[in-house]
């Protein structure tokens, strides 16, 4: 079986979800969105899946649309949370896992979703962080991802602007800031997979077509590498089949630059 990198990437995001977790993704996050549906259909049948901008609970959409609040995304859900019901749960600590990304991410897992060059006079004004500024402080675990590690501009030594909080900001640690969530525990990029050791990103797995030197050159902070660094475990055939079935339009591919979509593998 041949498969492409976007399919594998979604599998790796799904693998950060543990069965039974209450899990949420934000809007504009198709890879995380497909990953949550994949996890629910495979290794995490008992998770509670809260569908991004719809707040629908455990929906079974026929396809993933290119926008986060199309009504197809509540198909099969008998209940949708109200907006405030979700945010109250998130700041109270009842959401176990949320997926977050950013145009810049530092070694502590802080993320910039606001502006390259900082505010108030940005070089590039990007969309904004949605609800992440508050809920990154209180959700129990954060899965971070980026599909732009290779550019060398994403994993930075310091974010130009901190929209979502990681393990520490220049203002202090999570404990010092009074943050009740646990912060990021995984960061998946198109080059490798990091955990967080003593609050700092540490490379644990690397994709088989990537060299450590290449990954290091694309990382602006000092790269910490786990002693047991290995290649990423290949996906299972059934996982790839589910990705294709759940996302027949291929919305997940919107997150990748063309060269990443050229990466193909075999099982």
């Amino acid at each position, binding site marked *: 079986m041949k498969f492409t990198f976007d399919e594998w990437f979604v599998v790796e995001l799904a693998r950060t979800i543990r069965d039974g977790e209450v899990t949420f993704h934000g*809007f*504009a*996050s*198709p890879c995380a969105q497909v990953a949550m549906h994949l996890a629910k259909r495979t290794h995490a049948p008992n998770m509670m899946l809260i569908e991004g*901008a*719809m707040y*629908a609970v455990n929906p079974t959409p*026929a*396809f993933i*649309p*290119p*926008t*986060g*609040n*199309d*009504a197809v995304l*509540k198909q099969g859900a008998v209940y*949708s949370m109200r*907006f*405030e019901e979700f*945010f109250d749960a*998130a*700041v109270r600590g009842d959401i176990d896992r949320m997926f977050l990304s950013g145009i810049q991410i530092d070694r502590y897992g802080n993320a910039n979703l*606001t502006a390259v060059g*900082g*505010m*108030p*006079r*940005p*070089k*590039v*004004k*990007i*969309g*904004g*962080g*949605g*609800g*992440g*500024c*508050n*809920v*990154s*402080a*209180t959700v129990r675990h954060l899965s971070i991802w980026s599909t732009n590690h290779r550019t060398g501009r994403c994993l930075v030594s310091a974010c130009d*602007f*901190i*929209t*979502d*909080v990681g393990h520490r900001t*220049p*203002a202090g640690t999570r404990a010092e*800031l*009074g*943050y*009740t969530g646990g912060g990021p525990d995984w960061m998946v990029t198109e080059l490798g997979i990091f955990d967080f050791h003593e609050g700092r990103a540490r490379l644990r797995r690397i994709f088989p077509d990537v060299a450590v030197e290449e990954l290091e050159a694309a990382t602006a902070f000092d790269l910490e590498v786990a002693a047991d660094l290995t290649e990423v475990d290949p996906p299972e055939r059934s996982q790839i089949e589910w990705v294709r079935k759940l996302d027949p*339009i291929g*919305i997940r591919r*919107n*997150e990748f630059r063309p060269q990443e979509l050229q990466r193909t593998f075999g099982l």
Partner: protein
Amino acid sequence: MAFHLDADKLTDLNSAARLVPSGGLVALGGSLSARLPMALVRELIRLETAELHVVGSAHSIDVDLLVAAGAIKVCEQSYVGFEQDHGLAPAFRRAAQNGELEVRESCCDTVLTQIRAAEMGLPFLPVRGVKGTGIRELHPEYGEVTCPFTGETLVAVPALSPDVALIHAPMGDRAGNLHLEQPYVLDERFAAGSAAVVATVDRIVSTQEVAEAGIVIPAYRVAAVVEAPFGAHPTSAFPGYAYDRAHIAEWVRAAGTPQGAAAYLEQYVMSTDEAGYREMIGEQRMAQLRGYSDSTESWMSLYS
């Protein structure tokens, strides 16, 4: 935030849009590609409304059109853009980078908390997050408060009471009772925390019909209601119609330059009214958008 007790609030779009004062604090209902109050947005642009301070939770073409028309002074949104599909909002981005727009970027949960303070008649409420972020630095009006019970220091955010909330609903009655489909996003809270709701509906129906569908926003919050078929276009108003992805792509392409944005506004807004706008979109296209629910294939075909 007084109640609005008139039995009949049905009016025309122009009169309704005139209830939005230049310089006013305006809450925008809906979010992303769903239920944005587009007919009102277009009419505000025709009226050359200016200096608006807009607030909302994750918006797209509504804010981008208003920015392109020069109608917004302060943008207090948690996000403005077209997700991973069409990407950055061109007019918003350009104005933010040129310093023509004050971006007081916020967070969905902070806006929710500020509106709740207004609803409750309180001067502020605390939030647990925001501390240590760049968002905090963009808001000198935020404060800090020490909890008298636990001693924790939390960020205090002031009550935010919009002058008007602009809300589009698939159906409502002449009194202003509105039925919405989930997600309501902040619309219920905006309705309760704003001085007045100005609403557009795809269909004016009997009170009995809207009550049977379920009243989400009660008439006493609503100052004016307008029948505006396809009034959320190019965004969706389920169960009536899906969003018009191709039209949004047309805007994003056009708005890549100030000249292109101006040409779009001239064609679809300034030189026409809502009936003319619907004619330009065309019955065939509107039928496709209404036909999303015919089959999974027809729904997917809108987006493939």
